[in-house]
């Protein structure tokens, strides 16, 4: 097991380095966008004096490197900072300590919502996709296999908002079964919360199914040609059992990898779906913050997205190692 621990350690260190590079890229990129927070917030009222006042209050008049360093050093102390919007509001009241909502407090509930949506989607999509993959491997080249493939490829090829509107049309407008708005909020019962989350979760399921299903199918079919499977068949084991008992365990590594990538996508790539269904997740917050150039929030969101990718990939590697005795006990 020590090799696993070593891999985890190495990966975590590399992950930290990646996060650092990402923070530099994002800070530079946001800085290069036309307009800044002061201009974005003031809009039509952006007189030179007002812009200068806000810049001075928020320290936006400092040189680029100074701003980056102060952000980074706060960050290393575990302080994600206060969003410009909140800090600007605090200068209104003239009481900086009243700033209240930090980036952490702003992102926290939104991120929970996003995780909830990702969780519900994963619970539907993973069994569905893997099951479909196994079945289409079992009945490969049959009408079922082809039908499943066409369905999965069609849904992954359509833009998310289109799938969302198709689902809204059939499940909310023509047959009012599910609500088209997914505005969940604190204090909402679990049942209602699930019901409201179902439409976006189904949309995302359609988006991520194809990748996982086809990988499952391909990995299993690939193994079906190996001698030990042939042996199992010759012993007279039923096809379903051959696949589930003999082929699947060996095909797990690539499948887990694909699942991990798709889970990461569910956290980072749901912006469009959140907007269409008015779901209060981190994606909407991210878009809002980019719009007003609220760098602390944008940075925090990006780091969360990057961390989600790094951690899920790491987990995928760990699970593939654990699922493979040859990797677990290297010579």
């Amino acid at each position, binding site marked *: 097991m020590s090799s696993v621990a070593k891999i985890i350690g190495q990966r975590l260190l590399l992950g930290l380095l990646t996060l650092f590079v990402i923070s530099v890229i994002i800070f530079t990129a946001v800085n290069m*966008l*036309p*307009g800044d927070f002061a*201009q*974005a917030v*003031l*809009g*039509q*009222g*952006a*007189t030179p*004096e*007002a*812009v200068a*006042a*806000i810049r001075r209050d928020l320290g936006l008049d400092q040189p680029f490197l100074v701003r980056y360093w102060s952000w980074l050093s706060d960050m290393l102390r575990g302080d994600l900072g206060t*969003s410009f*919007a*909140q800090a*600007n*509001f605090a*200068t*209104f*009241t003239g*009481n900086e300590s*009243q700033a*209240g909502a930090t980036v952490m407090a*702003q992102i926290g509930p939104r991120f929970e919502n996003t995780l909830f949506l990702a969780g519900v989607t994963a619970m539907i999509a993973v069994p569905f996709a893997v099951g479909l993959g196994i079945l289409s491997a079992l009945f490969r080249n049959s009408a079922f296999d082809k039908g499943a493939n066409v369905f999965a490829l069609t849904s992954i090829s359509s833009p998310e908002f289109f799938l969302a*509107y198709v689902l*809204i049309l059939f499940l*909310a*407008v023509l047959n*009012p079964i599910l*609500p*088209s*708005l997914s*505005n969940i*909020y*604190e*204090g909402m019962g679990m049942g209602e919360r699930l019901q409201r989350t179902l439409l976006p979760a189904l949309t995302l399921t359609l988006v991520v199914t194809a990748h996982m299903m086809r990988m499952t199918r391909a990995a299993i079919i690939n193994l079906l040609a190996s001698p030990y499977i042939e042996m199992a068949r010759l012993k007279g084991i039923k096809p379903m059992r051959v696949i589930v008992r003999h082929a699947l365990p060996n095909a797990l590594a690539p499948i887990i990898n694909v699942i991990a990538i798709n889970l990461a996508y569910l956290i980072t790539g749901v912006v469009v779906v959140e*907007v*269409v*269904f*008015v779901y*209060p997740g981190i994606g*909407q*917050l991210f878009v*809002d*913050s980019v719009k*007003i150039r*609220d760098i602390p929030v944008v940075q925090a969101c990006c780091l969360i997205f990057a961390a989600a990718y790094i951690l899920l990939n790491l987990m995928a590697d760990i699970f593939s190692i654990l699922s493979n005795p040859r990797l677990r006990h290297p010579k």
Partner: protein
Amino acid sequence: MTRISRRGLLRTGAAAGVLAATGLPLRAQQAQRGGKITVGLSGANTSDNWDGRTHSDVYMISAAQGAVFDSLTEVAADGSLVGELATDWEASADAKVWTFNLRQGVTFHNGKPFNADDVMESIALHQGEDTKSGAKPLVEPIVEMKKTGEHQVQFTLAAGNADFPYLMSDYHLLIYPAGQIEEAIAQGIGTGLYQVSSFEPGVRFVGTRVDSHYKDGDAGWFDEIEFIAINDNTARMNALLTGQVDAINRIDFKTEQLLKANPSILIQEVTGNQHYTFPMLTNIAPFDDVNVRRALKYGVNRQEMVDKILFGHGQVANDSPIGPANQYMAELDPIPYDPDQSKYYLKQAGLDSLNIDLSASSAAFESAVDAAQLYQASAAPSGININVVQEPADGYWSNVWIKKPWCACYWSGRATEDWMFSSAYEEGVPWNDSQWDSDDNARFQSLLVEARAELDSAKRRQMYGEMQTILRDDGGVVIPMFANWVQAHNTRIGTPDQIGNLWQMDNSRMAERWWVA
């Protein structure tokens, strides 16, 4: 002291006390208490809060001034000014000293009784050197605020302003409890009809009706109101179509037919003061020549703009920003689309043809680039070659507006003539987007100051009429159209016959004025 008469009605004293009688007689018969309205609104942001100084869009205006807080005065649906926390007001003969009598027996949601201190502290929030309040120019002229009684406040202005009570109805000027303002801003404690029961910035606001209120019987029919933040046009329309919200603001004209086809949805449309403009910098050649400006005024097909840019949801404007929601809108002779006239004025300017850039971006208004292209096509026959420059939406207001010689812009309009003119047409003000000053027209600037302190309604009408004519003929802003406020609600909701046209969603007061049918 003189009693002020506005809009031909005596809006002070006893008149303001009987709000219902001055408002809408039908309302009292149809409306009844009870039920809930859920509204899907755009313009919400995660940085939203209860600080009136930061409010700028329909979501927070509807939640704050439209539900939780009150101001001193209120613009009724018919455009008249009625008292909210003030019952009546009086001015000195020079319109410099204003005395407001305040409503008695009003309490804040936390139980604190309302009095003159609350008004003074709340107004003071917008004063001071480095305040960033949007209402700073409105309260800047106040040189002294005096508590002349437990329920009376006296404002002394630097110069006379007959519209002062109107300015007090601005959505930034909310009244907070004195001594507890920070707490009130943090929690949303006002004197309004609804108190905050849940507020998630950029997501959702729920308000519950207070048990007893001074507007009982006149407004505030719902037991509960819920505003859901839906910034996406399509999502907002879907929410209305599937019945998850009862009303939405800002209909997308392209999909309006879908809403019209649904018998349980009613579309509401009013023409107010919102106008789309093309300001030219009159201190820069060639726009410093009035003949060039006139050539451009005759070179635009205004009706075509209303038809193609607004899909008919608007009204032709004639280069004056004073619209149907203003009191003294003049019946100006329209400026026709006339390439020959345009050519004539170009010749007067000593030019055979003119090559100019027109900067536009969706930041100005949604189809500003299309509008600029229409302008390009309609001006071409007169020898004016407009080169449409598509600017990035980001930083448009800082880098293009009032910087580039000619660009696209929009104004949501103002309740009074003086307010509009002193925001964008007075010499030296920061938003004077045509750099219009006394070098261009000294008469306009002197009329502007004179009319401000004039209390006689007939004289004001005449002065404002003349100013609008000056702007039409010589002004530096091409204003081709007024854009309607278009919103929709389902048949579950009842609305008064007259809907406010100053601002969208019944002047953002649907929570007060509408009811469950």
